[in-house]
């Protein structure tokens, strides 16, 4: 392609904001008249945020108001209280979520670290090591994503009883690890394949064994991918209900926030004042984790899905 002026319609230096070249989306959008595009985007964003906003506002309203009027009335008749949060966070009330916050943390961290690490090892082997049945095994691992958790409940619980870990955190850690492995192996494998073959070859020529390559070469290069997957696994474990319910039960010692939240609906029906505050307490930590580590997530997921 010979040198052609980027934009014959304007006189002067290129004006596109992202630099001299423009993405398809930006081009498409530029042609749509800008204000309409912005408006559409704003409308969508507002629509998407209203539900959450509604519940957030509700969580600060007095209980009596919640059942009588809608949350939008706070615009004309504001009345706020911290009572709902107090009930939900204080240790005095049996409706408190406080103990379960700690449980959620204790359940989630190992349930992220363990599968991530094991999956990385396995993915490396699938990507860069040659062994019999490699392809078949890989497809099998990937395909096992289809197994719904419910079918594993009783067999696994029996197993845990037999090896004496039921009623402890290990039951939950092991379960989450097992369930998280197929997808993790699959995605990490994709990332690993992108590392140029030459680098590995060079290292092997230098006499490095696989273990060395894994620790010295792979892990550093895969940090974004591992971070991305780690976040995804974190969100998944933190927000899980069924695994926690079955393997951790509702004991105050073990139950994470999702189980406590479920019980908040109690025998008193739609207690929105508690549910709203409870829901937000349980949303805060994952929301923070996600927001602060967003860019890894985007980059990581992208790398696994786009080829060429």
């Amino acid at each position, binding site marked *: 392609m010979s040198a052609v002026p980027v934009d014959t319609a304007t006189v002067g230096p290129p004006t596109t904001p992202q630099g001299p070249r423009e993405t398809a989306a930006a081009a498409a959008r530029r042609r749509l008249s800008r204000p309409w595009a912005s408006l559409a985007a704003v409308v969508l964003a507002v629509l998407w945020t209203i539900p959450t906003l509604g519940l957030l506002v509700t969580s600060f309203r007095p209980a009596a108001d919640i059942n009588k009027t809608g949350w939008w009335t706070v615009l004309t008749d504001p009345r706020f209280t911290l009572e709902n949060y107090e009930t939900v966070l204080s240790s005095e009330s049996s409706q408190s979520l406080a103990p379960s916050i700690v449980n959620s943390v204790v359940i989630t961290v190992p349930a992220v670290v363990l599968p991530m690490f094991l999956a990385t090892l396995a993915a490396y082997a699938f990507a860069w090591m040659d062994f019999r049945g490699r392809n078949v095994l890989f497809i099998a691992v990937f395909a096992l994503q289809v197994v719904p958790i419910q079918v594993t409940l009783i067999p*696994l619980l*029996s197993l845990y009883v037999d090896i004496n870990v039921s009623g402890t955190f290990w039951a939950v850690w092991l379960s989450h690890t097992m369930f998280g492995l197929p997808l993790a192996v699959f995605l990490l494998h994709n990332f690993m394949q992108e590392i140029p073959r030459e680098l590995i070859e060079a290292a092997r020529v230098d006499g490095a064994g696989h273990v060395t390559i894994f620790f010295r070469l792979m892990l550093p290069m895969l940090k974004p991918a591992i971070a991305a997957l780690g976040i995804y696994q974190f969100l998944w474990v933190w927000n899980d209900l069924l695994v926690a319910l079955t393997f951790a039960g509702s004991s105050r010692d073990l139950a994470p926030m999702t189980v406590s939240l479920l019980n908040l609906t109690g025998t008193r029906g739609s207690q929105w004042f508690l549910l709203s505050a409870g829901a937000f307490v349980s949303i805060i930590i994952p929301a923070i984790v996600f927001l602060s580590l967003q860019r890894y997530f985007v980059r990581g997921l992208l790398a696994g899905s786009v080829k060429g």
Partner: protein
Amino acid sequence: MNGMRKRRNTTTIAATAAALALVLTACSDDDGGGGGDGGTAAPTVDCADFESYGDLSGKTVTIYTGIVDPEDKPYIESFKPFEECTGAKVDYQADKQFEQQIVVRAEAGNPPDIAIVPQPGLLAQLVATGKVVPAPDAVAANVDEFWGEDWKALGSVDGTFYAAPSGASVKSLVWYSPQEFEANGWEVPTTLDELKTLSDTIAADSGHKPWCAGIGSDAATGWPVTDWMEDFVLRVGGPDAYDQWVNHEIAFNSEIPTQALDAVGEYLKNPEYVNGGFGDVSSIATTAFQDGGLPILDGQCSLHRQASFYAANFPQGTDISENGQIFAFYLPGATTDEKPVLGAGEFVTAFSDRPEVQALLEFWSSDTWANLKAQASVDLTNGGWITANKGLDPSILTNPIDQLSAEILLDENAVFRFDGSDMMPAAVGSNAFWKEATNWITGQSTKDALDKIEAAWP
């Protein structure tokens, strides 16, 4: 680039700080409140009563149940004397998926020490897993002393006695407002016909629908309709027909149940009668059962058929008394001579025979516990709990509803029958019956509903 980095670092720091703050709040609170709720001080009980249990310091007994807040508090409170006098610890765990999870846990070999089972049908299911242990002799002795034979039979499966009864509830009650009745000159009906006439009167004169109802209850949605139907099978067919129906000696869609359900339909599916305060007939299906009777307080409806435990759902401070804002009358029989009473109860099922578990079971089946529990309920949840334990001291019950229920329960002339859906096999009683009842409310015909339930019988 640097600016972006800084921003991200700040966000991360802020995020971590917030998260830490949250966790620390949890930590500090947890350390403080570790042992249990503040609540009322444990009633002083003579520890001499507990000596026979021995010293159980350091031992823990786990209880698993579906009874969550607020009814869990009186239970926890009632075990405190046991804990204090024997040194054992009672770990009360509850969640709303109890009825499914207990089966999972039993089958997997991970049951709690004790489960509070609200249905004889579920009890049978659990016994079938082989993990339930029969009740210890001391418990059987208590049950022989304090309960009638029919209660002991309900806690037995195939002749072996497993589970002592705990609390009970009376279901043949209609909630109403005495003040409203007084103001309008309405009388409490004593026969079914009078109930019908009263409903018509209210529909015509009062400007609101006479009945209100709610059957919403998540996975158990529809269960209040089963109570209505059971009450009417008792009244239409009599206690013997009821027994045949529950034991599947007559088909679920045979004549008597059909008549009974149609009789219920004259109330629940009658747009002239329902759904006061909520809307049309189908709103019954989406109104939570806990909210079902509340419109009485607002004057939006006048009659609500529900069990004795419903008292806990009225706001604190409501005057629940014979001449107050809210009270209940016995759902009348066909004639004044007939007094069929539908009720339910819970059964204390053990999966372990450790000494501390047996000690707690013995305590639980005694009159001491019954009175402690009744007192705790009065203190913490405004009553709403009674038991068929004959050792209960009725003077403890300050709640007029409890007094009424206890009176009905212990009436010599009453013919007591246990809630049918609780006795049927799970496929029917915990599934098809509820589901088809809900569909029946939202439009399905009586015939279709009953046919489907009959088909679901294993």
